[in-house]
Every structure is written in C-alpha cells, then in structure tokens.
C-alpha cells in the first residue's frame, strides 16, 4: 500500500460510501444528485489507482466515466424533470466539493506523472469531469428549464 492507494481507499470509503446510501434512500432529488457525485468519486479513485498501481491504462476508465457519467445524469434529469421541478435539489455545495477534489487529485497525479502526453491526458480528463459535473448539476437543479421550455415551444 502506497500513499496513492491509501488515498483511493479513503476516497472510496468517505466519498462513495455515503453515495451508495444516498442513492438507495430518500427523495428522488437527493438520489439523482448522489449518483452524479458518485461518478466524480469513482473517476478520481480510478485516477489514483492508475498512479498507485503504475498502470496508466486505468486512466482510460476515468476518461470514459468522465464522459459517460454526466450524460447518464442528463438522461435522469430529462426523464425525472416532472418529479424534480416542484423541489429542485440544491447542488452547489456538492459540485464545488467535487470540483475542488478533482483539482487536487489531478494536480497531484500530474505532478507525479511529469510533463508529457500523459499529463495532457490527465488534464483533459479532469477538465471533462469538472465541466460534465457542473453541466449535469445545473440540469438536475433546474437551471436549463427555461431553455427547454422554449426549445419545445
């Protein structure tokens, strides 16, 4: 066990443990927000494991998750729009926490990787993760409802 694996384990327990609980219980708004946060947590765990095991191919999993996770949340936001609109969930704090954690992990892994193509790949993955999380969170909390109303006449 090195520092990367310890960090990944702690993140999995502290970040993903509550996500499983929040996804399985409570109102629908909280469940959607929790599964959106779960994407970020697992993505960061993958980045840390790639560094911990010295297997750069694990980064691909993080990349795929960073792209597909927010898309999944957008599907939920679209299908559950009627259930979410009376009480749109607050996502600002969790989005900020996810962005902060992503920045910290990506900077640390980049520092360990050193300059090169691998570092650019990590930065792109981190940027996709943060951007996807912000867009998906805004969609869940009803930020695009006006645009949606105009697009459907």
């Amino acid at each position, binding site marked *: 066990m090195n520092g990367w694996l310890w960090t990944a384990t702690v993140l999995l327990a502290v970040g993903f443990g509550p996500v499983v609980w929040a996804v399985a219980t409570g109102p629908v708004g909280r469940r959607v927000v929790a599964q959106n946060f779960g994407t970020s947590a697992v993505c960061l765990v993958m980045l840390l494991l790639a560094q911990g095991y010295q297997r*750069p191919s694990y980064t691909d999993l993080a990349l795929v998750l960073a792209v597909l996770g927010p898309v999944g949340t957008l599907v939920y936001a679209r299908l559950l729009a009627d259930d979410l609109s009376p009480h749109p969930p607050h996502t600002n704090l969790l989005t900020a926490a996810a962005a902060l954690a992503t920045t910290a992990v990506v900077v640390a892994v980049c520092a360990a990787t050193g300059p090169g*193509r691998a570092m*650019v*790949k990590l930065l*792109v993955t981190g940027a996709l993760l943060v951007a996807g999380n912000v867009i998906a969170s805004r969609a869940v909390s009803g930020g695009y409802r006006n645009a949606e109303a105009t697009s459907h006449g």
Partner: protein
Amino acid sequence: MGRAAAVTAELLAWWLLLMAAWLVFISTVDALEGFVGAGCALLGALAACGARRAMGER
C-alpha cells in the same frame, strides 16, 4: 462561396481538435495510429458540424 468556406473552416477546426485529442489519448504514436486517427477525426468532425448546425437551426 462564403458559406462553403465557413463550413470547411469549421470542419478543419473540429478535425484539428479531434486529431489532437486522439494523439494525446493513444499510448504509442506511430504512422498507423495516425492514419486511423485521421479517419476517425474526420468522421467525428462531420458529426460535430452536423450536430452544431442541428442545434443552431432549431
């Protein structure tokens, strides 16, 4: 003429962006990967142009 030039410029911009992403994401850079990447980037660029036009014209 102006419209064709604009579409070509947009296609080229998307192709350059996608080709750069391809070169960053692959593990080993060689000629074959370059050819495959160029083809995939062209397909992606066409799709991106189409998607952007579909969004812009609604």
